[in-house]
Each structure stands twice: as structure tokens, then as C-alpha cells.
């Protein structure tokens, strides 16, 4: 029986060289299956790939189904354009203040990794700042009405160990600002200066914006696909598969960075997700080098603290220790993480803050993330 899930998986891989799977159906699917597929496509931000498959007559649909797919994609395009416009406004503000930044994730992937940006939908803006300009950026954006969605662990923790913050604009849109690509664990071994050294430009409207270079962008896509959600999002996995095939990644430099940043286990998991979720075969020297990689125990624990059964903040803190060099930094991290502000705890706990702390203590006692 052809399920909406199986169809969504096929759509997520559609257009990738090496996808090569024939259309999963010769006739338009039943409307009930179609309705479920369309929900998945919208939720997983695959509307561009769905319409591309329909336009190429790779997926047979009824007239009504085509119209629904076109509307879903039109909506996705309108959202992306509104975000691009907001990004240009934000870029002008940051330029005026002389604050350097890079565009991350959806916006950068759409404009740099895909042959047509309309293929890649996105629902927020992500910007990376140098650590020494992060607070200034936060202040500038606050001055024009952006508010933090969650309080920081502690302001000092944020500056030294944090990943970033989610801001909400006065219109209600999300703007994620980053000083690192990952919280804790693998984030400690990322060379943050290299991120800015690797930068490349892309055109948006009448100006050039900067994003991560091909290798660092692929690494970021791997972190996001492998650690972002317990059930990985199809579009995140597609980003990895897309970039592996885009032809601008230097495999040797990528593998060297993955080694230096201790990210081999993350990349291996992202590659495995590509094979299992998109039904695409192994591809290229990166796949060949890491497809059989067996993670070490501290790497397994670190990955599990994001996508395993115990994703509590304390599990990530504990899993971070092997990645921190030097006893002084380990102690500083533990002390800073061990005394979160009340506002932070209130923001994380669905009920009482004491329950959240209790869960953290339990997660530390009962063991490691699995």
C-alpha cells in the first residue's frame, strides 16, 4: 500500500542525481493519501520538490491535486520572499553598525546549494555573528523591537558557551542569531574563526550577502540533520544530499575539517540518514570515507543527548565534558551550566521549574543519554 509517508520520502529525494527511483505510482493517488501527503510536504518544507516532480510528469496527479500543490508552493514562495526582504532590512541595520555576520541554513542553502531557490522553502532567518560582536548584535536587534523567546542560561554563559538565541520580531517572525553552530558537545571543537574565513557571497536583491563556504556549510547541514530533531526533517537530510552532489565541496578539505572538528560521527550519521530517508545510494569520496565510521562512546553519548531518549540540558552538559580541552574550561562550563537563571528554568519547564531541575538531576543520576 502506497502511504503518504513513502510518497513524501520519494518527493524529498526527487531531482537528486542518483535518486533514479521510478515514480511510485502510475495513477494519481487517492484524495485521502494526497491530503496526508500535502500536509507532510508543507510541514517538511518540500513544496518546491513536489511541484518540480509534478511539472516533470514524474508524479501523476489530478487537476485538483496539481492546483493544491501549486497553491502550497506559492504560499511557501511568499513566505520565503517576505523573509528575504526582512533579511535585507536586517542586513542594512547591521551594516550601518559595522557588525559582520553570515547567513545560515535555509536562506543560504536556497541561494547557494539549489539550482533554483524556489526549490528550498524556509520559515525563519538564521544569522551567525563573531563571538565578540554577538552581544552588540543582540542589542541592536533588541533596539528595533526583537525580543528573546527564551532567557539565557546566564548572560556570561551565553557569551562564552552559548549557541545563540531565538528572537521574535515585532511582526512575530523568528530570527535565530548564533555564535556557534551547535550547543555544547561538538560545538566546542568547531573553529569559529574558520567559519568566517570560509565565507562566500550570494546575491539577494540588490546586494551581496555572505554565507558559510561550501565545506563549512555542508558540515553545518550535517550537524543540523544529525542533531536537529530525533526524527530528522526530510528537508534537512535533503540539504546534505544536495550539497554532496552540488560539485563545489572539496572532499579532502571537508574531511580534514570534519576530523579537526571531531565531527566524523555527526557526518557519518547524516550520511546514513541520506541513504535511509531519501533512498539514495552512497555518493562520492566523503561517503566512501565515512560510511563505515564507528563512533566512539563519547561521540555516541553526545549524539544521543540531542536525539536520544534523554535530551535534557543536563545530559548535553555531561556529554560535553570530553569535548572541552583543559580542566579550567571544564570547571568553568560546569559551574556556569550548573546555576541557570530562574528565567531560563521557567522558559524550559512546562510545569514548575523545580520539576525541570529534578528531571535534570535524575538524568545525571540515571545515567547517560542513550
Amino acid at each position: 500500500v502506497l502511504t503518504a509517508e513513502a510518497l513524501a520520502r520519494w518527493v524529498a529525494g526527487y531531482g537528486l542525481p542518483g535518486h533514479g527511483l521510478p515514480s511510485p505510482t502510475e495513477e494519481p493517488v487517492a484524495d485521502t493519501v494526497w491530503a496526508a501527503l500535502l500536509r507532510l510536504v508543507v510541514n517538511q518544507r518540500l513544496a518546491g520538490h513536489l511541484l518540480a516532480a509534478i511539472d516533470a510528469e514524474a508524479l501523476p496527479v489530478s487537476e485538483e491535486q496539481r492546483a493544491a500543490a501549486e497553491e502550497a508552493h506559492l504560499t511557501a514562495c511568499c513566505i520565503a520572499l517576505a523573509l528575504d526582504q526582512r533579511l535585507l532590512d536586517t542586513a542594512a541595520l547591521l551594516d550601518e553598525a559595522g557588525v559582520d555576520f553570515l547567513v545560515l541554513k535555509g536562506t543560504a542553502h536556497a541561494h547557494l546549494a539549489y539550482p533554483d531557490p524556489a526549490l528550498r522553502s524556509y520559515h525563519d532567518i538564521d544569522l551567525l555573528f563573531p563571538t565578540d560582536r554577538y552581544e552588540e548584535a543582540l542589542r541592536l536587534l533588541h533596539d528595533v523591537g526583537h525580543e528573546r523567546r527564551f532567557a539565557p542560561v546566564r548572560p556570561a554563559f551565553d557569551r562564552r558557551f552559548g549557541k545563540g538565541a531565538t528572537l521574535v520580531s515585532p511582526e512575530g517572525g523568528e530570527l535565530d542569531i548564533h555564535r556557534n553552530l551547535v550547543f555544547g558537545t561538538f560545538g566546542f571543537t568547531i573553529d569559529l574563526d574558520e567559519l568566517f574565513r570560509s565565507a562566500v557571497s550570494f546575491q539577494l536583491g540588490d546586494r551581496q550577502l555572505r554565507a558559510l563556504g561550501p565545506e563549512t556549510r555542508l558540515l553545518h547541514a550535517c550537524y543540523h540533520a544529525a542533531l536537529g530533531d530525533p526524527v530528522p526533517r526530510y528537508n534537512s537530510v535533503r540539504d546534505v544530499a544536495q550539497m554532496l552532489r552540488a560539485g563545489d565541496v572539496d572532499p579532502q578539505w571537508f574531511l580534514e575539517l570534519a576530523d579537526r572538528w571531531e565531527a566524523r560521527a555527526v557526518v557519518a550519521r547524516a550520511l546514513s540518514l541520506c541513504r535511509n530517508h531519501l533512498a539514495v545510494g552512497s555518493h562520492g569520496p566523503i561517503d566512501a570515507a565515512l560510511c563505515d565510521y564507528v563512533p566512539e562512546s563519547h561521540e555516541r553519548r553526545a549524539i544521543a543527548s540531542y536525539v536520544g531518549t534523554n535530551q535534557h540540558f543536563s545530559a548535553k552538559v555531561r556529554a560535553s565534558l570530553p569535548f572541552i580541552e583543559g580542566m579550567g574550561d571544564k570547571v568553568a562550563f560546569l559551574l556556569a551550566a550548573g546555576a541557570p537563571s530562574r528565567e531560563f528554568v521557567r522558559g524550559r519547564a512546562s510545569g514548575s521549574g523545580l520539576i525541570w531541575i529534578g528531571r535534570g538531576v535524575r538524568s545525571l543520576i540515571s545515567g547517560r543519554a542513550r
Partner: protein
Amino acid sequence: VITWARGPRTLWRRTGTRVVLLNCQHEDPMVLDDVGAVIWELLGEPIAEVALVDRLTTVFEADRSAVVEHLEPFLSELAAAGAVTSC
């Protein structure tokens, strides 16, 4: 000779046979259907209005005077929205 081009600050996406535009002067996106989307494609490089009429007459196998009659108000509307420029 009037030459038309896409506005440099106009953001756009192609979706099926349509093109959706967003310009910083307007909050609401503008959707161009079939013929409008073809005109947008032809505006990818600056193009003289006469050449644009020629191309549309050929592409749509249409009467030249009918193309001129419909093209001018269409371009004026896009220009008023800031989506295209002329010189």
C-alpha cells in the same frame, strides 16, 4: 527607445507557470500568471520595448497591435509598483 529591466531590489520566485514578486515598496507580493511570467523571464536582461513586443508576438503568435495594447499598461503597473525600471 524605451528599455525595460527588472527592478534591482525586486525579489522573486518562479512557481509552476507563475512568478511571484516582492518589492520593498510594497508589503504584499504580486503574482504574475502565464503571460506575465513570460514577460518577467524576458526582462531577465534589459530589453528594448520594441524587442519585447517582437518576442511576445512570436512566442504567443499574437497580433502585434494586441500585444502593444496589453503590454503598455502591464509594464506601467509593474513600474508603479517598483518591480521594473525603464530608461
